[in-house]
């Protein structure tokens, strides 16, 4: 087994033993159970019912809480390990720095993505069993969107961990980043900017750049093709890129952003003091 896979496996097994992982899996699994219990599969919104309705709600909840979960657990794990002296010992072994860093990233991606995906897959399996129709196209697109979102925030988390010298600073940085990106959603500051007639180019640019917004827009696009709920910024985006073009952008942009952030983090990690 290569050093990268060994490092990834090490991170996965360490995460599976950690308390945060149990809590994390419980939250995302619990959300699906709660949505079933409250009969969301039987309610209707914008013509959507059945599992589609549940998935739409689930994905909207994910956009709010998944990024902060990923950021905090990643910086606590990476910056915390360095602070606790784990890096001092583990990096005294002849493991390549690239294998250690990217192995950690791959390992963490597995543990943050799998519970979210498995909760969704569990819902699909239960729906099949109950003979409720499963919208597989929606399921596939949402899975891809979740991959993109998880990867981008994992990249941010790795960058913050590489830059911060203590886990306290890293956690504060992670929280601030999440807060800023959350504020620049259409529901909050973007809405205010549109209402105050700020330049549309600025509003659209911010909506495109923010991976949370691109995720939210793409998720809504699937069941509201005119994006009535999103207002004028969405119209401009749709006019420029089209529905399929925007969907492709919403999948590619967060992945590129996360990879760029992780790569920058790797450069900082490799150039600086390791423990």
């Amino acid at each position: 087994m290569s050093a990268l896979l060994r490092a990834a496996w090490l991170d996965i097994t360490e995460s599976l033993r950690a308390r945060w992982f149990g809590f994390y899996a419980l939250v995302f699994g619990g959300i699906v159970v709660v949505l079933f219990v409250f009969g969301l599969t039987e309610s209707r919104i914008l013509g959507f019912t059945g599992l589609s309705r549940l998935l739409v709600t689930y994905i909207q909840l994910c956009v709010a809480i998944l990024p902060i979960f990923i950021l905090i657990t990643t910086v606590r794990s990476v910056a915390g390990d360095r602070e606790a002296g784990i890096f001092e010992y583990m990096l005294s072994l002849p493991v390549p720095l690239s294998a250690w860093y990217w192995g950690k990233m791959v390992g963490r991606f597995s543990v943050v993505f799998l519970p979210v995906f498995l909760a969704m897959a569990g819902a699909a399996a239960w729906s099949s069993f109950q003979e409720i129709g499963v919208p597989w196209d929606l399921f596939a697109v949402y899975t891809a969107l979740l991959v993109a979102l998880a990867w981008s925030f994992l990249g941010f988390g790795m960058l913050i961990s590489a830059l911060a010298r203590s886990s306290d600073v890293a956690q504060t940085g992670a929280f601030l980043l999440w807060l800023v990106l959350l504020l620049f959603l259409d529901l909050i500051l973007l809405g205010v900017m549109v209402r105050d007639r700020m330049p549309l180019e600025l509003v659209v640019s911010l909506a495109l750049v923010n991976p949370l917004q691109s995720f939210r827009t793409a998720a809504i696009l699937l069941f509201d093709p005119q994006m009535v709920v999103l207002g004028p910024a969405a119209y401009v985006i749709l006019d420029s890129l089209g529905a399929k073009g925007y969907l492709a952008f919403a999948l590619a942009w967060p992945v590129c952003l996360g990879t760029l952030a992780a790569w920058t983090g790797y450069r900082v990690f490799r150039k600086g003091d390791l423990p």
Partner: protein
Amino acid sequence: MIRFGNVSKTFKRARVLDAVTLDIAQGDRIALVGSNGAGKTTLIRCLLGEYTHDGVVAVDGLAPRDHRGEVLARVGFVPQIPPPLKMPVGELIGFAASVCKSDPARMVAVIEELGLEYDRIRKLPFVKLSGGMKQKTLIGVALGRDSDILIMDEPAANLDPEARHIFFRLLAARKESGVMLITSHRLDEVAALVNRVIEMDMGQLVLDDRVADSVDMASRMRCKITLVRPDDAFARTLGEWHFTGADREWSGLVNGPDRLRFMCMLSRYTGLIGGLELVEGKEGAPCAPVVV
């Protein structure tokens, strides 16, 4: 073999290493001593390629930072504070052996030689082990592979006398084949293990001297102590050295390399000691009296 050339390290405005120049040759067993903040750990981390620094650090001409694989494959490292790893001991051994391209059975053999039952601890989280068990496991990882550079930060601090004896014997077996760098706050802890002493203070080398101690690292001394009166505190201390006895008569074994440390301990109770006999002999061989 190892060269530190004008190595300096600064954290923010604090200069932790100040133009350190040091050459270490094969066969050197170095006690790196100094108070807290003297720069010992920083020097070790530079050698492990973990810190960036000014100047040159090279192991047979290779910079540890740029040639991690080649250099660290030769280094066995035991840190002073064991890492709080949650993984089971078996997983740690498996990971270390795989990245070091070593046989995990060799590491397990050293751990068992130091007195740990591997099967009992294999599935236990490393962080849940006692201080001594952690130390033995890390020593097993460091010595159970082909490392010709041993870097140990207070390696025997948490070991019981029996484990210390075995540890000294393991070091004796490889003392001519490479380099040992042992850090300690106190020279008496490591004096018998080394042939060179380097003292650091405020990031600089303040002493670099040779040590001529002919003690056999595998030797043990039989010791009998007679007290002028029983003393609870002394009895407890002797108990820590695994001595047996009661009231005024005590006896036990002292590892050869520990004799200076033992004498230092005895010096605290000089007024209590009515008689003392120390007899040296190789393990398993008859003892010849050297000190009475």
